[in-house]
């Protein structure tokens, strides 16, 4: 089968970008989307042209490095899928496929399809950690945690920080990411000591990075490759109110 690709090309952060069209790209339905971009790049390099720059690492859907908006959908039309887990069998012969980078002021384009997601790192640095004494590992089960709580914390912890929630949100909001990172620590005992300062710091940083606010469209949840739910956003909201009331009382 053959497809026509419209790919966003931008030579640098401040450069003007434009779509480049590759017509009749020969593809196999079993190819992943990234393998298709690889074949385009092999051809470009053979012609002495600049290859299409895109982020990728594990190519098995667990690292969070890859991501692009395909025909208006973050990570493309797959369900709970990263871009690397999207295959050409999801398209038809002759399809025109538009590929663009995540669009958010907090995710500036580095080059082509690659965006700078260090705003996520700064949100983590503002509180997405637990301060612990290093040394030998504690005994397993020394700190009993109920199974339902452990499961909810684990579900939040599956966030790979790919940024699809931001890309898919009508407001380019990072609430799903931030709430998952606040909750996976805030739900378990180890995260209690810094629970208030964590949510206050991370929400402050999230706003400072220029992300939008949540309007409960739930597009993030639908685009998340890990299926993380918006209930963590409600959890963050509650934690933030609680933290403010707590600090006000002190």
């Amino acid at each position, binding site marked *: 089968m053959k497809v026509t690709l*419209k790919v*966003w090309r931008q030579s640098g952060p401040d450069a003007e970008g434009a*779509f480049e069209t590759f017509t009749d790209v020969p593809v196999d339905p079993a190819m992943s989307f990234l393998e298709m971009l690889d074949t385009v790049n092999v051809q470009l390099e053979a012609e002495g042209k600049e290859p299409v720059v895109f982020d990728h690492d594990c190519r098995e859907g667990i690292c969070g490095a890859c991501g692009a*908006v395909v*025909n*208006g*959908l973050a990570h493309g039309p797959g369900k709970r899928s990263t871009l690397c887990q999207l295959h050409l069998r999801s398209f038809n012969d002759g399809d025109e496929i*538009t590929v*663009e980078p995540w*669009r*958010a*002021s*907090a995710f500036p384009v580095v080059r082509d399809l690659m965006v700078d997601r260090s705003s996520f790192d700064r949100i983590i640095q*503002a509180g997405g950690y637990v301060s612990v004494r290093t040394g030998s590992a504690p005994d397993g089960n020394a700190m009993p945690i109920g199974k339902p709580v452990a499961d909810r914390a684990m579900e939040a912890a599956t966030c790979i920080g790919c940024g699809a929630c931001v890309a*898919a949100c*009508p*407001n*380019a*909001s990072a609430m799903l990411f931030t709430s998952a990172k606040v909750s996976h620590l805030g739900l378990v005992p180890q995260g209690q000591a810094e629970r208030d*300062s964590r949510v*206050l*710091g991370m*929400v*402050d*940083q*999230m*706003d400072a990075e*220029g*992300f*939008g*606010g*949540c*309007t*409960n*469209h*739930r*597009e993030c*949840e*639908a*685009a998340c490759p890990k299926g993380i739910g*918006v*209930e*963590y*956003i*409600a*959890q*963050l*909201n*509650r*934690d*933030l*109110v*609680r*933290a*403010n009331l707590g*600090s*006000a009382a002190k």
Partner: protein
Amino acid sequence: MNSVTTIVHSSVGKKVLMGVTGLIMVGWLTIHMAGHLIMFSGQDAYNNYAHFIQSGFGLEPALLWGMRLFMLAAIGGHIWAAVALTQQNAAARPVAYAAGRQNRVTTYPARLMRIGGMFLLLYLIFHLAHLTAGVLSGSEFAMGGKPWVKEDAYANMIHGLSNPVIGVVYLLATVALGAHLRHGVWSAFHTLGLSDPRWDAIKSGLGNLVPVAIVGGFVVVVLAAMGGVFAPPDPAWHPPAHWLH
């Protein structure tokens, strides 16, 4: 950072304000709707109810203005938060997707919150001018050519809805309100932190029930007024002497 004031200046804090002011208005609307059902009990009963409110809930006339200012503050806070958040959201994605961002799950009520909210504000101004302040008193179009009489709320309602065009405006506003609440009530609970799965039933239950109940109540009253279900107002009706001083 980590300040007590995060709630005030953060996007989440503005949403909390949005949710709290929204729920205040929902509470008010519930009472407003229930009060309208008294129309079915006739002119005396409805006018008595209207007088109860006009006289400051039978206690102190200043209470009515207290209530009005409280609601005005809620509406003002709601609008301020909406404008501030909309600006922040617009700035968060300066470059739109060329292929158009495709929605996977969002609903029309959710997408129409801003435009619907603006329509409801315009309607509110009209509604207050029409039936609360009576500025269209005597208008052939808006009051059926009848005067607006403060104490005779029953007649005002029937005359005010005697023109089907006005009636349709009221029905449209009610539908817009229902759509706004369909997304708003659930969202308010969500924003105010009802995250635990135990609350899901209450969140979606009230999120559906509240809009249906409020819209249903208003629609029944407007349709009854338009369809002549209510007894025509007695032109000789006069407020009891003890109301007038």
